């Protein structure tokens, strides 16, 4: 069976969808923090209690990485996407704590056909990471390059 790929043409501005969920694990928070963001509120539970956050919180980059994994598992595997030049307006809005259950909501906000490369288009998404209370903990404008649907011969 051939699963049809999702091309630039298949994305609809305004369309929104959500990924599966991920439970945030304390040991994973500390492991990521030790490797990439060794600030006390990411790696030391006792010291984190004394910080402005009142407890251990995930590195914002860990939240971003967990969101990427949810996006890869749910959307990217089937997308005719050729990577990303970057993102805009990332905001870490709420702390992510051990035991939180996060998911990603992705909404197409803009589609821009490439002028120089007729086989490509740029798609901008409003990407929101939500927790189990439906609070937006992180938001950003994601930018992805998509292949255009090949002409049928």
């Amino acid at each position, binding site marked *: 069976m051939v699963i049809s790929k999702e091309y630039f043409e298949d994305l609809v501005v305004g369309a929104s969808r959500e990924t599966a969920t991920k439970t945030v694990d304390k040991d994973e928070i500390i492991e990521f923090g030790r490797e990439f963001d060794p*600030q006390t*509120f990411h790696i030391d539970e006792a010291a984190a209690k004394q910080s*402005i956050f009142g407890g251990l919180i995930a590195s914002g980059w860990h939240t971003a*990485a967990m969101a*990427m*994994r949810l996006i*890869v598992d749910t959307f990217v595997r089937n997308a005719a996407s050729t990577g990303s030049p970057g*993102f805009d307006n990332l*905001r870490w809005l709420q702390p992510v704590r051990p035991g939180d259950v996060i998911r990603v909501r992705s909404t197409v906000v803009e589609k821009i056909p490439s002028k120089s490369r007729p086989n490509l288009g740029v798609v901008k998404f409003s990407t929101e990471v939500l927790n189990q209370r439906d609070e937006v903990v992180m938001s950003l404008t994601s930018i992805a390059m998509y292949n255009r649907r090949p002409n049928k011969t």
Partner: protein
Amino acid sequence: MPKYYFDDFRVGQVFDTGPRRVTKDEIVAFARKFDPQPFHIDEEAAKKYMFGGIIASGWHTAAICMRMSVDGMIKDAASLGSPGIDELRWLKPVRPGDELKLRMEVVEVTPSRSKPDRGTIRVHWTMSNAAGEPVMTMRGLGMYARRPKAA
């Protein structure tokens, strides 16, 4: 005692750090956890893609940038976390064996209006490879405590 409080930052201040060598094993380990696309985890499959070999996940490059920022400055600072990043661009692939250097430049210093004990700095990050090519740039925010008044 932190070396850098909010009061110690000035527009134009520069922090340089690195080089840090990126290994294939760490690229694959990160991507298996967070970004398991073939061009990040599978050397043979990666050859068939436009990059012609394994490249680091952009989120891995960002995480390495964070670690280099901590090592190069934030570990000595009264950091209160970050509200966010205005703009990030992945400009060149990061490949196994690349040696990355990071420059952080303070571009804006803003005391908090509502909370007199802290302020926000805006930083421009440039991460470059050994050839001196920027591989990633970022503009974003960091929040820092103000220096406590002497009692």
